[in-house]
């Protein structure tokens, strides 16, 4: 790792200003989990790190907020995964977020990793992370996974890059229909889907933030009284591993029928993958084992696997069925 300057500005505006230079010059640091990894791996060597954890009271309050504000749930960018996983204010309605936060990484990492860092982290693709290799994301001409080792890569929405989006919270927040608030030269609030950039839009980046912009919080809409949600992931290794696939589901159960259904899959596509196909199968229907199997099939209908990752199709289907059973309260078959 190369030496750098550490700045601890007192206001968000000052931080945004310090970070408005190019990524080579400066980087915002919150938990520092992914950033320091990238610096140690020799992928980046920013001359200055701008700390967000030392802001003055007023800004820190915004960035550390967690809980109902008005009728919506606000989650500050500096809220840690451990805080999300333990938050008692999340009931059935927001269980997906709690479960997602609690499943990521390790207890040690969850104690430091933040919502903002989790959403904006860079991909874990082993070509991107290999300091000696120049992949498409690093200015190369091709995604090296296509001809290479692509077991962990995208089966949906891939091309020209086949990374999978690494954020676990993103999958849950997509199912929960969250918005994100951005401060900077032009403050704005976006539906979470618009935070993410597909490789077809720009293969070098995964999110839409510009230098000098700071993601300050996520906002969950007020849930209806019957809203429930859930999240689960399948991993090769059960202690500290990146998922092979994730599924998050939100629905309301009214008079025996599922409404407002949202289905999101993670680690199957370069962005958190909302499945309108599965939603269409489920919306307005009474929950049943057969319907869930049909929805899972629909969710993966468009999958285009690479050489080594076709297994993700049945795996993601199995996972989605499991989450649907759990969220809708339909007992899983033995």
């Amino acid at each position, binding site marked *: *790792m*190369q*030496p750098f300057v550490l700045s601890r500005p007192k206001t968000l505006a000052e931080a945004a200003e310090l970070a408005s230079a190019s990524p080579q010059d400066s980087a915002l640091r919150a938990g520092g989990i992914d950033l320091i990894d990238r610096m140690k791996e020799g992928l980046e060597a920013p001359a200055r790190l701008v700390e967000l954890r030392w802001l003055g009271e007023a800004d820190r309050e915004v960035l550390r907020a967690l809980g109902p504000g008005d009728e919506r749930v606000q989650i500050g960018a500096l809220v840690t995964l451990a805080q999300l996983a333990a938050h008692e204010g999340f009931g059935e309605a927001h269980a997906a977020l709690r479960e997602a936060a609690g499943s990521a990484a390790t207890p040690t990492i969850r104690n430091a990793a933040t919502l903002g860092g989790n959403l904006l982290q860079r991909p*874990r693709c*082993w*070509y991107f992370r*290999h300091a*000696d*290799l120049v992949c498409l994301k690093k200015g190369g001409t091709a995604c*090296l996974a*296509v*001809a*290479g*080792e692509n*077991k962990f890569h995208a089966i949906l929405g891939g091309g020209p890059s086949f990374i999978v989006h690494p954020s676990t919270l993103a999958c849950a927040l997509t199912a929960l229909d969250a918005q994100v608030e951005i401060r900077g030269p032009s403050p704005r609030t976006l539906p979470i889907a618009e935070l993410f950039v597909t490789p077809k839009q720009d293969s070098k980046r995964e999110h839409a933030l510009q230098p000098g912009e700071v993601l300050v919080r996520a906002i969950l809409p007020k849930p209806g009284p019957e809203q429930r949600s859930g999240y689960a992931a*399948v*991993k*090769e*290794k*059960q*202690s*500290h*591993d*990146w998922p*092979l696939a994730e599924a998050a589901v939100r629905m309301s159960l009214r008079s025996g029928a599922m409404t407002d259904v949202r289905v999101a899959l993670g680690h199957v596509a370069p962005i958190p993958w909302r499945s309108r196909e599965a939603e269409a199968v489920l919306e307005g229907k009474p929950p049943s084992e057969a319907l869930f199997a049909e929805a899972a099939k629909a969710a993966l209908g468009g999958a*285009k*696997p*690479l*050489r*080594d*990752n*076709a*297994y*993700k*199709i*049945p*795996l993601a*289907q*199995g*996972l989605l*069925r*499991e989450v649907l059973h759990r969220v809708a309260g339909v007992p*899983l*078959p*033995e």
Partner: protein
Amino acid sequence: MPDDQRVTLKVGFAEQLRDIEVQLPAGEPKPWDARSELKVVGKPHPRVEAPLKVSGAAKYTHDIVPPNALWAAVLRSPHPCAVVESIDVAPAQSQPGVSAVLALVKPGERVIFAGQDIAAVAAKTPEQAEAALRAIAVGYKTEPFVVDTAAAMQDGAPLVHRGKVTERSTEGDEPGAGGSAGQRGNIRTSPSMKKGDAHKGLRMAKVSHEATYTTQVHTHSALETHSIVVQWDGPKAATVWCSTQGIFSVRDEFAEVFELKPADVHVHTDFLGGGFGAKFGASAPGSRMGFIAGELARQAGAPVRLLLDRKEEHLCTGNRPDSRQHVKLGASVDGKLTAIHVVAHGSAGIGTGAGVGRNAFGIYSRCPNVLVESHDVFTHAGPGTAMRAPGHPQGAFALELAIDELAKKLKLDPLDLRLSHDEHPVRRHQFELGRKQFGWDAGRKQAAALRDKQARVRRGFGVAASIWGDFGRGKAVVATVSVLRDGSVEVKNGLQDIGGGITTVVAQVVAEVLQRPVEAVRVRLGDSELGPSVGSGGSVTTASVTPAVRAAAEGVKTQLTALAAKQLGRKPEEVTWSEGQARAGSKSIAWAELCKKIEGEAVVATGTRPETYGAYPVKFMGGNSYQIAGVQFAEVRVDTWTGVVAVERVLAVHDCGKVMNPLTARSQVQGGVILGTSYALTEQRVMDRVRGVMLNPNLETYKIAGARDVPRSIDVVFTPVDTGANNTGAIGIGEPSTIPTAAAIACAVHDALGVAVRDLPLTPDRVLAALGAVPTRGAG
């Protein structure tokens, strides 16, 4: 000294005990046998060094910082195969903080794996060393390469070695294994293991099974990476701290490289953060670490610390080779094996040692016809090295899973099929014991019921066997025991404690003989000036060291007995010891009083261990030592929707002769089971076949089992055996305990699914593929 003596020993196991006569060399204490009543040895005792380790006071090689020490860093080849056209290290010399720079290749030399040594620097800080490496200019002409084992076997594949490859043997290798019977292309054939006529046996078979099984490259990944610290003490002498399994192998290699007398190289390994066979000698298997650190230190005129990082540890320090094993089994309709034929190919990267045959050859010995043919396949990747039971876990996996698949065709219980072909009485006893304790019969029924109704979540039960030899070494260890006038007791030997607990066991042996508390025995190890010793490889440590320690302790006791006799006015033969007091008739003298009568500073004796003199009841193939037995049972849970395998329980039933310390022995077996589980489920070196580089040289995507991945319970049962091997009765356990784990888990997955997953690791993609759930492969 008395002459050679014949003694009667009670040997055997469980109810099967008998007397045998053994010829002992002069001066050798009568071995502890089944009649011996021991008070300290065989009782659980916590590690004596545990407080140092948990408090951080224990100093590992990584913690050694001599005054003015410099940091070394090594530039490594980014290419799997290339000819070095030019190298200019001069720009590094002028970088800030740099004291010495070394080119490790010359123009015209060919590098043959990504990670190979190119150049090295020593600088004041690690950041300066890293920056200086970037200033080194190297021109490469890249050449065709091959990193995929199957591709390397093809005619016309890029050749890894242009000449004949000879083996570099270490103490980590299994004694008697290896050797060459020819080399063609990238394939080097090892001598076959042959009994009867396997081809004929297969022709005679009424029921047969044939399949290919593959296993992955497994990297050692010791917690403490390879590390060496060198300090020159004048031009012809050096002090070396090294993370090693063999202090004397470090001394000898360092002395050879720098043309020193071995006695002028002083090696320390006070504490060792793990070793699985790759830490012998001053260098790593794929990096000349001893030369690099020594030469940089010499040029800089200052001590140099060379501590590999995790990436280097994966790339150039050795690994367990992969394997592709084509197994053919033949049997009669009533379930008698007529043939076992294994053709194995395995890649040890640029190195040798991919043989897998001992399980197939040695365990189911009632099969009359066995042929095992092993081949090393060379690839442009980091070298293979002996790794905890070299060849065995991969051999066990293929053979045991094939046996299960055959049993299914024969409609036989796979445990019964094993019992009817295994002649080792201890292993048969272990199979029977495990069958009851594990609930095998009920478990198999439960698994079958879930399978029959196509349940989403299945259960499976598997079993596999272990084979190893008592390779305890004679005439290799000289231990010294001293009793000082203040009554304190010290034992010294130039052994390293690899982490298995030998420090504690040595203290127990001395405490047993001298009837002192274990805590009162000061154990000094980890220093080449403390007397000759063995490397910790081949599961030999306890069996080699404890008999020498006991002999030394008995020597001291003889002297103290004579002193006591003098004090008590009796003959030495009238003196007896109990509870730390010497007694003769009605008189006695307490330990402290007796020690005050020592003339001079101390009573000192050295002890050695003779060659192994007993091997009851079964010998290891081709040798004169006992064949160590073990079996493991595994229960798995498999989610057929996601393909995830969870290991619920492992029962490990093992024999390690006379158990010296049940607490540390159990811990070692649990470690073996955890290593085997990790190998079975997740660990795998991934090479990019297009670029020839390792894609997961870290502990994130090279996946080692964590707390949630290890079996929910690991039960360890020892079946003690008195073999008559040596005077403490100790034999090895480190390696046997990891041999059958992955095999048992794979057999359990077969039981759960009804189809075998024939490739390790047993990841969800493979489980789903075995279930037929994965659609046709995508276009790529």
